[in-house]
């Protein structure tokens, strides 16, 4: 259990990082002659200031929460799955495959879509896992290369054989209504509940099961895991499969919930998830908090577009916050470790 002083130190470091990130973005605004106060106010009112704004932020937060949870499964075992992006895209593909091309009775459609999506996400992680275990291929690069392959594959489908002949955009035909995730409000669907449930399940898995313990040992030290008789190869494959299946949920949410069709997903969620997981110290419950924060930033970008300020300002703010948080949290976490525990 983390001590209260460590909590205070880390939270303080994070708040400082956010403040510095806002200052950095304000300086960019000043330098480009954009009114600072109005711009920041637009972000606030568009992403936080009303119930509607908060809901819009949550729409962004849900896929980031899934990719963040996927990242924390892998990263706490020190398996560098950078492929959340591709696994998410393949999850979207797997769900769309069932929704558009597998005739099933109504109630069976959604469960089959979710299973198919998760299976394709897991498959996309399985390849790099096997390459790592069997040949020692660096998973950072193999998962990354597969991100591009997955995105191009879905582009191929939506610009080619799966393109809706009735529409002008590179989109698949809309999913039938039985293939849409049940809505909770105009914008939100059941995924907003599923994410916290999975976070709690992961927290229990990590904390109270032998598997959770074994993967934590793996993350702490490979030699220690080997001396303890753990089957590192098998654990690595299992971690990657679980990570890929969870990342797939981010894609399923976007095609079966938000959009209701298959398209070229907005890029970046897979990478945001890694940053969110790191900010959260790979703690699944904190991943939810950090993903919500990230959702606010992403929705802030939309708010800027409405206020006719360049929305990529929010990217600079994101980048600055993460850089300051990297510095602050690295130092805070090192201080809160007991001497001799290493950095």
């Amino acid at each position: 259990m983390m001590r209260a002083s460590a909590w205070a130190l880390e939270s303080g470091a994070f708040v400082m990082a956010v403040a510095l990130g806002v200052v950095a973005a304000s300086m960019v605004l000043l330098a480009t002659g954009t009114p600072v106060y109005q711009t920041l106010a637009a972000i606030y009112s568009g992403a936080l200031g009303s119930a509607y704004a908060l809901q819009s932020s949550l729409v962004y937060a849900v896929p980031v929460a899934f990719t963040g949870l996927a990242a924390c499964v892998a990263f706490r075992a020190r398996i560098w799955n950078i492929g959340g992006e591709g696994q998410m895209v393949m999850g979207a593909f797997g769900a769309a495959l069932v929704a558009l091309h597998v005739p099933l009775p109504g109630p069976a459609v959604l469960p089959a879509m979710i299973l198919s999506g998760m299976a394709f996400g897991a498959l996309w992680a399985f390849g790099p896992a096997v390459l790592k275990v069997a040949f020692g291929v660096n998973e950072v690069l193999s998962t990354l290369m597969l991100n591009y392959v997955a995105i191009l594959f879905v582009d191929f489908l939506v610009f080619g054989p799966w393109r809706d002949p009735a529409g002008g955009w590179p989109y698949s035909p809309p999913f039938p209504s039985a293939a849409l995730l049940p809505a909770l409000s105009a914008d939100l669907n059941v995924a907003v509940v599923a994410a916290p449930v999975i976070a709690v399940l992961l927290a229990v898995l990590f904390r109270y099961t032998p598997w959770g313990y074994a993967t934590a040992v793996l993350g702490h030290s490979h030699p220690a895991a080997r001396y303890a008789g753990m089957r590192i190869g098998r654990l690595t494959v299992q971690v990657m499969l679980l990570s890929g299946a969870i990342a797939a949920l981010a894609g399923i949410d976007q095609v079966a919930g938000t959009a209701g069709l298959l398209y070229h997903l907005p890029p970046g969620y897979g990478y945001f998830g890694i940053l969110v997981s790191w900010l959260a110290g790979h703690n699944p419950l904190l991943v939810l908090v950090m993903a919500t924060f990230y959702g606010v930033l992403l929705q802030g970008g939309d708010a800027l577009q409405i206020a006719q300020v360049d929305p990529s300002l929010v990217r600079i703010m994101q980048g600055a916050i993460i850089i300051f948080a990297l510095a602050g949290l690295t130092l805070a976490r090192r201080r809160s470790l007991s001497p001799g525990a290493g950095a």
Partner: protein
Amino acid sequence: MNEAMLIGLLAATVSAATPLLLAGLGELVAERSGVLNLGLEGLMLTGAMTAVVVTASTGSVLGGIAAAVAVTMAMGAAFAFLTVTIRADHIVTGLAIVLVGDGLSQFFGKAFVGVNLQDRLAPLAIPVLRDLPVLGPVLFRQNVLVYFSLLAVPLVWLFLYRTRPGLALRAAGERPSAVDVAGWNVVRIRYLAVIFGAGMAGLAGAFLSVGYLGSWANGMTAGQGWIALALVIFAAWHPVRLLFGAYLFGFAYIMVFQAQVLGGVFQLVSVYLMQMAPYLLALLVLMLIAARSRGRGDGTPAALAVPYVREERT
């Protein structure tokens, strides 16, 4: 295929290989010192955007290139501060640099998207050599950044393997404590290596924008920064093998492009599927390298991405 087409293909390969070679060489030096900089993609984007903005505003291509290198070197210094001084995680910091570079380049490049530059880096034919059959048009009628990239290969090799600072740099990536004991400053070596690597990535971006395409587009590097990272592994951290790898991938890019232009049987295959080729090739290469070097080590610097803590020197 006639001779003119072949020459065109090879000359295009040289152009496509140059950014990979520049970025890869810089990364190779940084990794040899023990720092893994995953941020190449973001640095290349920043370099490409800076070069276009400064060139378009001042009319000076060289000014644009110099600005690209200066800005990315500053980002490299920030990366070194985070990873070497604060000892933040190399992988997460690298991803953050990609996001920052992407954001900076989109924000400051916005007004220049789709603008065709009046001034670009003009080709500089080298007297005598330019008249060689085949080789002349392929290699010696390129621009100065192409020559620089080719010259940089032997220079980096000489530096790493034939000079004392080069030896210290390689040792900093293998056994930093020994370098420290020998009186070298590990922190300074790593800072300089990372800043050099970032500047080379910026130069690679500048080549793409003002030396090759003559314009700026969001995300125009399209994954080349990541391919350059894979090439460093392919090269087993050796500059001469990196040259070979960069040209192999440059050729792959050009073949994909040519296949689209040629049409015929290739028209049956979607461009999106053909664009997978470089990534699948990279995956295949990583696999072959790993399979070949199983048990013998693949040349990874022993202290790569391991922070050096002087107080814990062993």
